[in-house]
Every structure is written in structure tokens, then in C-alpha cells.
């Protein structure tokens, strides 16, 4: 039978089988011997946070917010302009490439040219976000109702018809999405500290890696408070004021010389064999082949394994967690607790989860899978839970497990699958950060290339990552179209 339900079942089955296969292939052994001491230290750290031991803490917070706000401002403006040209294939392709590269790697690339400067921080966020905004705004405009524009008198100029008949339909969605992106940008900005920009992540990573858990816990608490209170003080009305303040305090600048840019383009990113005076094509082929065999293929393989296993775990976790916040289940208190749990899980940086899991479980792929699944699972559960609030069940509908299995789940399943497929691409991107932590995904090899100061190799590896991400995105889009899944405008990219 080729019904919608059978297609949903097939897709679920395929994804589940792939996920199980990935789990079989993945190295998920637990190797640690006595994590007790370290866990006790971590626990103790969270109970005795030390807010005063971080050098230049306020400056770090300032930079975190500055890069985030400036990055979103530039990224959304650029994305908006690109969205106007969304029907052009070249624009869609360019924005897909730009957003397939993780902020960390953009940061590492810009570091080579602009150094440790405020401009690097701004660009590392603005560039990938520009691609993301372009896609989301472009799709908003594509999906919006064209009737008002058609109803205009013939001869209305293009600007007026866009301004008065197209933009107002999507403006509210764009604002909501922008606000969500600011929260993401604060997280991204913090993460940029891992590669040396002076944001809060700089100190957070140091504290946890050095075992200074009291300092780390304090930083984490501050970070959580900033993220969770964002909506209170980052009012849309005040946004220009905040932006102005960050521009005054951390104006995007870099002492860049033209020589540095030329060197980057004509030397650093040119494959090593081509830099010799007399080179042959065979040398370049050997270089590429070696890179392909030793790094790209294993890296892509591990990235896929990690991504698929994490996707499966995410799905299971989301299905388990969403009733916690759904108005169809529990009562006010339990929902409150559920909300807190989900917010906590999705705000904790994956890096930190992975780090703690490595200490507890040992260095296999398991910490990576768990970290990605907990973080993404909480997001998908949140979206599903919110969606169930719109359901109108009969007064005499079953309760408990029957309500879950026969009333709620069938109604939200298409949306659940849509959210999950949307998240797939993002999970693949996020494997990058786990690579930096030492799980041998493509990100690991990219990080190695940068630490060996081999930008040429890094660029080829990043290119491979881009192709992988675009392929995953295409498969996900194809599946969604086949299943006729529409995300409406609630997608949280």
C-alpha cells in the first residue's frame, strides 16, 4: 500500500536501520577505569562555583555579546539581500556552501588573515549566518501568499509591491526567527573562544580542560543566565542601542596588511606541491590521493557514522522527552520541570556534555553520540511538545500511555519527522566541534591541519565537509518532499 502512513513507516524504518548500523560500526566501548575522583571533582565544582577566579571575565562577556549581536546584524542584512535573489540557483548554491562550514572553521580561516581581532569574531558569525538567513528568509518569501501582490494595480513599481504587499506578510516571522538566531549567535560566539577569540568560551574550555571545575561551573552558570535572560533585556526596541554600544566598545577592526591577504591567497591555500617552482600534475594527484585515503575517507566515514547514530538517538530521546512539556500530559508542575530540563539540555554546549562524558565513559564515539543526541533531542522534543499544545483531543480521549500512543503520537508524527530531518544537517555540522575534541570526524582532521599550519589541507578537507553536508541536505529535502512534510514557519534552523 502506498499511503502517507506507509511512506512515513518506510522512512522511519530506513533511518532506524541506518542508525543501528552506525551504532554497530561505531566504537562505543566504555573504556574508563575509575572516573569516580574526576566526577567527584566536577560535582564539587558545581556546588562551589568560584566567580572571581577568571581573568578579565567581564571583558569576555562583552566580547561574547558584541560578536553575537554584530554578527547577527550583518548576517541578517546580508541574508535578507540574498533572499531577494533566492530564485537564482547561484545564490542558493553559494548560501548552501557558506552555511555548510561551521563557525569554528570560518573563525580559523579568518584568523589566518585578520588575526585575533574583533573583525575575525564578527565575520566568523556573520558569514555562515548570512547563508542561514538567506535560506530561511528566502523560503519565507517563497511560501508566503502572493495574492496581495497580484491584487495590486498593474504598473505598481517593484519596490512598492515588495514593500507593501510582500514584506508585511513575512515580517513577523523574520523578527521571530531573528530573535531566535541571536540566542544561537551567543552560543556560537562563546564557542569561538575555543579557537582563541577572547569570548567566554576561551575561559570555559580552559577551566574544564585544566580541571578547575569551580571556575568552570561559575562560567557555565553565568553563560546560562545570559542565554536564559536574553529575552528580558534584549528587547527588539533596544536592539539598536545594544548594537551601538557593542560597536563603540568593540569596533570590528583588524590591523590587516594587504601582504597578509595576498600571502593567504597566493601561498597558504595553494596545495603544497604547487608551491614548488617546477611542479607536475602527478605530484598534485599524489597529494590529493594521499589526503583522500588517509583523512577524507576515514573522516567522512566517521562523520556519517556519528551523525546517523546521533540522529537515531535524537529521535528516540525526543519521543521520550516531548510529553514532559506537552499540555496533553501531566500537570502544571510537571510541565514546568520538563521545560526547565529541556531548556537546560539545549543550552548546555555540546562540547561540555561531550567533555564530561569522555571523563566518565572514556574516549570512544559514545560521548559524542550522547552529547549530540541530548542537545538536539531536547530541541526536537521542545518543538514537538509545543506542537501538541495545538491539538484538540476529544474530552473522553484515553489517558496515559494510550493517549500517547494512539492519540498524540500519530497526530504529531509527520511534524516530528520533519523536525528531525531538518536537524540532520545541523547534527552533521556540529560533529565538527566533536572533532576538535578528538573524535576522529572530518573536524578532527581539519583541526589537525590547522594546528600543523597547513591551510591548504584544511581547505580541501573543509571542501569535503561542504559536499557531505550539501548531500545530506539534499537527501533530507528529498525525503521531506516525498513525505509531503511541511515545516510551516516554525523551523528553528
Amino acid at each position, binding site marked *: 500500500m502506498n499511503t502517507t502512513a506507509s511512506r512515513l513507516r518506510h522512512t522511519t524504518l530506513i533511518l532506524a536501520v541506518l542508525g543501528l548500523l552506525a551504532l554497530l560500526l561505531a566504537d562505543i566501548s566504555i573504556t574508563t577505569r575509575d572516573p569516580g575522583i574526576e566526577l567527584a571533582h566536577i560535582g564539587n565544582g558545581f556546588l562551589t562555583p568560584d566567580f572571581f577566579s577568571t581573568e578579565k571575565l567581564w571583558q569576555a562577556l562583552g566580547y561574547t555579546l558584541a560578536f553575537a549581536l554584530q554578527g547577527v546584524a550583518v548576517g541578517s542584512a546580508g541574508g535578507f539581500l540574498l533572499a531577494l535573489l533566492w530564485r537564482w540557483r547561484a545564490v542558493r548554491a553559494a548560501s548552501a556552501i557558506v552555511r555548510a562550514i561551521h563557525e569554528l572553521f570560518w573563525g580559523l580561516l579568518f584568523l589566518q588573515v585578520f588575526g585575533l581581532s574583533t573583525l575575525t569574531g564578527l565575520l566568523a558569525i556573520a558569514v555562515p549566518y548570512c547563508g542561514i538567513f538567506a535560506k530561511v528568509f528566502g523560503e519565507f518569501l517563497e511560501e508566503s501568499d502572493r495574492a496581495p501582490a497580484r491584487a495590486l494595480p498593474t504598473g505598481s513599481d517593484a519596490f512598492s509591491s515588495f514593500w507593501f504587499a510582500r514584506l508585511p506578510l513575512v515580517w513577523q516571522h523574520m523578527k521571530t526567527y531573528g530573535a531566535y538566531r541571536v540566542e544561537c549567535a551567543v552560543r556560537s560566539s562563546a564557542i569561538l573562544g575555543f579557537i582563541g577569540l577572547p569570548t567566554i568560551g576561551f575561559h570555559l574550555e580552559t577551566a574544564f580542560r585544566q580541571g578547575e571545575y569551580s571556575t568552570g561551573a561559575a562560567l557555565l552558570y553565568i553563560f546560562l543566565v545570559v542565554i536564559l535572560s536574553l529575552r528580558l533585556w534584549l528587547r527588539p526596541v533596544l536592539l539598536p542601542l545594544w548594537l551601538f554600544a557593542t560597536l563603540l566598545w568593540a569596533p570590528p577592526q583588524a590591523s590587516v596588511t594587504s601582504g597578509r591577504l595576498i600571502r593567504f591567497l597566493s601561498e597558504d591555500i595553494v596545495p603544497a606541491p604547487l608551491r614548488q617552482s617546477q611542479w607536475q600534475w602527478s605530484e598534485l594527484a599524489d597529494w590529493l590521493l594521499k589526503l583522500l585515503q588517509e583523512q577524507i575517507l576515514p573522516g567522512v566515514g566517521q562523520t556519517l557514522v556519528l551523525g546517523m547514530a546521533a540522529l537515531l538517538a535524537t529521535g528516540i530521546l525526543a519521543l521520550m522527552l516531548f510529553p514532559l512539556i506537552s499540555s496533553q500530559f501531566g500537570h502544571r508542575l510537571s510541565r514546568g520541570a520538563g521545560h526547565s530540563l529541556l531548556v537546560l539540555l539545549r543550552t548546555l554546549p555540546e562540547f561540555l556534555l561531550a567533555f564530561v562524558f569522555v571523563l566518565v565513559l572514556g574516549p570512544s564515539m559514545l560521548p559524542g553520540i550522547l552529547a549530540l543526541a541530548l542537545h538536539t533531542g531536547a530541541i526536537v522534543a521542545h518543538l514537538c511538545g509545543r506542537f501538541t499544545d495545538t491539538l484538540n483531543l476529544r474530552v473522553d480521549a484515553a489517558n496515559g500511555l494510550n493517549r500517547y500512543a494512539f492519540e498524540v503520537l500519530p497526530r504529531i508524527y509527520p511534524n516530528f519527522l520533519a523536525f528531525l530531518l531538518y536537524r540532520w544537517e545541523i547534527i552533521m555540522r556540529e560533529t565538527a566541534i566533536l572533532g576538535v575534541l578528538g573524535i576522529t570526524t572530518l573536524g578532527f582532521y581539519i583541526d589537525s591541519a590547522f*594546528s600543523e599550519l597547513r591551510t591548504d589541507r584544511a581547505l580541501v578537507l573543509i571542501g569535503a565537509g561542504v559536499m557531505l553536508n550539501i548531500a545530506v541536505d539534499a537527501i533530507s529535502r528529498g525525503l521531506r518532499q516525498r513525505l509531503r512534510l511541511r515545516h510551516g514557519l516554525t523551523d528553528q534552523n
Partner: protein
Amino acid sequence: MSKRLMAAVVAACMCFGLLACDPATPNKPVLVFSAIPDQDEARLIERFGKVSTYLSEKLDIEVRYVPVKSYAAAVTAFRNNEVQLAWFGGLSGVQATQLVPGSRAIAQGVEDPRYVSYFIAHRDTGIVAGDGFPEGLEGRSFTFGSKSSTSGRLMPEFFLREQFGKSPEAIFSRVGFSGDHSATIALVQSGAYEVGALSYQVWDKEVADGTVDTDKVQVIWTTPPYPDYHWVIRGDVDATFGEGFAGKVQRALLELDDRDVLDAFPRQKFIPATNDDFLPILDTARSLGLMD
């Protein structure tokens, strides 16, 4: 409305707060130096702040320290002339001198010509220190420190290859990079990895500080000596800061006898160094394929 007003007040206060810590803009040339983040990273500014104060007095010029997150970032900053002087490890030092023509090593710690790495193992492995290279390493899980560390990666990998005639991936069941020396101790102590390699200085310091449980983790082998840390200065500093500036910096470092400042490294004192002292490191890095 009152909520909005409050938000505005809070926002305004924070803006002024932010403006208040506006970093001063320099107009005279400032000597900027950095150091690889090899240990005790949470106190980098405290540690190296003393060094900049000392150099600043000695050279009669503003000296600023910039913290970096990774060895590669230190080399990149040096190459980009964001820093003119740097305290590098053996590998990062030769990377820097190779990338910046004219740059040269000017000083090293008195300990540095004969630096060593320790191999450490978790007690449960049953591997113990003996005469010569320890038995029973094959098939264990093993962690290096940072990917670009001389004592945590380059030299241990060199000695492993010399000993076994194959790559670390072929010797061990699992090979990782902890990121730095202290993390190596923590990971081996928790049993996440069975064996690890790190700088002898960091081990000795942590044992002295009592942060290592020597019932759980022990030194099983000491590598032969090799040259490691050194100060490198850019060749174009004389043009920026005046004739003979590199020499002045070198003298300032060699004359340094303030225990408090030296402890930041930590070194007994500094002695002269030249690029040639680190040729063995360059050869090793090339033979391992870490440099072209």
C-alpha cells in the same frame, strides 16, 4: 510599561559599564609577546603579566602580553606580526623560524637543551618502570598532549617509532590528543587512557603540588634528552623599535634573575640560543611528516 522602562535602565547601565572598560589605544610602537599555552592556562595573564612588566622596565617601552589558545595560534600571531616576541616550544619555534624569514632564537631555559618527556601509565595496566623501554605497551590506549607539542607529541612519537618501527596508530589500540599536559595526567589518572606522554616539568610540578594520585598513575619511562623551549624574535624588530633592539631583548632575558618572573616559565635562568640549536627538532618534525 514599567517592565520596559526597567529593561531600558538596565540596558543603559550595562552600556556604560561596557564603555568604561574601553581598552586604551596605543600610539607608540608596543612590543607584543605571547607564549604557547602549555600549562596552567587559567593563570596565563597572571603568569606572563610579570614578564611584560619586567621587559617593559628593562627596555623602557610598552610591552604587552596576548594570551593565545593553541600552539598554532601563537605561531600564526607571530607570523602575522601581531606578536614580535614569543616563548615557543621546540616544534612551534622551528615552525615560526621557518615561516618568518629573519626571525631567530635568542634565548632558552638552562634546562631546555636537555629536556625530556615522561611516559606515564595507569596502575591497572601493571606496566612499571624498569631499565630501558617498558614492556607491554602494545595494544594499550595512549594519549599525546597537544597536537603541536614537542614534549607531549613530537618527541614521544619519534621515540615510539624508533622503538617499534611503526606508527602510534599501529602500536596502540587507540590514540588520542588530550590537548595539554595537565589533561594528559587527568585522563590517564581516570583510566580513560591507559598510557600517556607529557613534559617532565608539568608532571614534577603537579606531583609537588599534590594534584596527582601517584597510587593511580606512575612514570614508566623517561625519554632521551632533546632541545625544547626557546624565545624567538622577529627579524624586523630592529626596524620598528630601533637599531640593536633584538640584542637588547636578548640581554634583558639573559640578565633576568627575579625568581618570581622565572617561575612563570618555570626556568632556573635563561641562556643564549641560536636557530641551529633546534635543527634536530626540525629534522624530526620533517621525518614525521608534521612539516614540509
